[in-house]
């Protein structure tokens, strides 16, 4: 992975059909190493479904996902995770009866068989997301903002190359969102690649190198942030008319 602009993730003509509903149809784009790609679109546009297809939860009905040069077809989420791609959940899924640190330990164990070592990694990651003071609390009892941070710490602990973040700022107040934005930028500093779903346009504009817009399952537009906000199609479908 010497060339920075060789694609780390290449999505080719991915379609996903649920019965009669095309949640994704013929979506293609690619990501280069180290970039942050913003994925936006109205509710139900198929963003989460695309995450599910990329990470192996659903087999795509059609199309290929190529990660670090490997085709992921037929791989299960755990295999994808071992390859270095991991996602967070839009509806956060803490392991409720485990402590905060144990949640992160579970993530870390994918790279090591030793529990003490995993605890070390976990502790580091909790520091990164500023949750270290809650390490011994039960994860089920955290307020929403901290649950989202925990979600991020847990995936970071798997030492991924590519992170898929599904609305990690959703439901956070501006201050909390700001924390997460800083966190995402910091992660980028470390050279990790990220794909971010977010409804908060302000945040998306700040962090994204590139934006892909989905609408009714199809790719509506792709481009640099400033191109996107001024794209009339995107404005009518997503941003709202008054914006122009």
């Amino acid at each position, binding site marked *: 992975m010497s060339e920075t602009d060789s694609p780390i993730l290449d999505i080719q003509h991915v379609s996903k059909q649920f019965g009669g509903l095309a949640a994704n149809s013929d979506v293609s784009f690619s990501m280069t190493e180290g970039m942050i790609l913003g994925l936006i679109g109205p509710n139900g546009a198929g963003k989460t479904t695309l995450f599910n297809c990329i990470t192996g939860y659903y087999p795509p009905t059609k199309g290929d996902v190529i990660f670090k040069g490997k085709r992921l077809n037929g791989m299960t989420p755990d295999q994808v995770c071992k390859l270095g791609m991991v996602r967070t959940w839009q509806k956060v899924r803490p392991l409720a009866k485990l402590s905060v640190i144990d949640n992160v330990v579970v993530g870390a164990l994918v790279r090591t068989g030793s529990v003490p070592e995993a605890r070390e990694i976990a502790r580091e990651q909790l520091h990164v997301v500023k949750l270290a003071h809650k390490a011994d609390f039960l994860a089920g009892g955290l307020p929403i903002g901290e649950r989202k941070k925990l979600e991020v710490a847990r995936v970071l602990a798997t030492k991924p190359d590519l992170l898929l973040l599904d609305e990690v700022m959703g439901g*956070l*107040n501006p201050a909390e969102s700001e924390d997460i934005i800083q966190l995402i930028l910091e992660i980028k500093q470390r050279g990790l690649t990220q794909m971010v779903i977010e409804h908060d346009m302000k945040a998306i504009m700040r962090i994204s190198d590139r934006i892909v817009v989905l609408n*009714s399952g199809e790719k509506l537009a792709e481009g640099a942030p400033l191109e996107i906000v001024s794209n009339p199609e995107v404005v009518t479908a997503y941003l*709202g008319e008054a*914006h122009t």
Partner: protein
Amino acid sequence: MLRIANLDFSYGDLQVLWDVSLDVKQGEIVTVLGANGAGKSTTLKNVSRLVRPSKGSITFDGHDLCALESHQVVELGVVQVPEGRRIFPEMTVLENLRMGSFLKSTRPDRQRNIERAFTLFPRLAERQKQLGGTLSGGEQQMLAIGRGLMTNPRLMLLDEPSLGLSPLFVRNIFEIIKEINKQGTTILLVEQNVFQSLRISHRAFVLETGRVVLSGTGEELLGNEHVKKAFLGA
């Protein structure tokens, strides 16, 4: 008509509403705005008694809703069209509508109400025999609203009716909401689609992480700097 005062609510130990107060007057359209997870749906669930608040009061036309069960709230004329539509998937369109007039008091009007739903949403008339679960998102939304109307509501709580709908249909939905309001139903609307909803509403409240931070008329809020920043993007 509806008054929510000093409402606190927690899911288990996770508090999501803090001292929320808002009110709706007869004949109004009132919108509640707020980011994901701000507690908008939770507020509506409290009104419908799907969940119980830890503190505060909810009154409707002088009735204390906190003393009632969900189905009794519906009997008073307060109906909710919930987030995610919640159509009965294994029932046909017609059966779904009939479920809307389950209450004894609304059964005499059943036929008339079904016709009203079909006039508002001609699409539903075409698909009477189709199972709810196989409808497209937009159709499900129509069905959910139609089903809500079957109860002869005096106050209708609409939770994100435009969610997942095509932009064209979104505009349509707001026209329909206005129409329903004109026919005499008061409306409490929860929306992410800030422009459209503010445009049709008389008044609006903004929720942020479980607290009411702003309120005013639709016009006022449309012009408000904070609203612009928080919801309309740069």
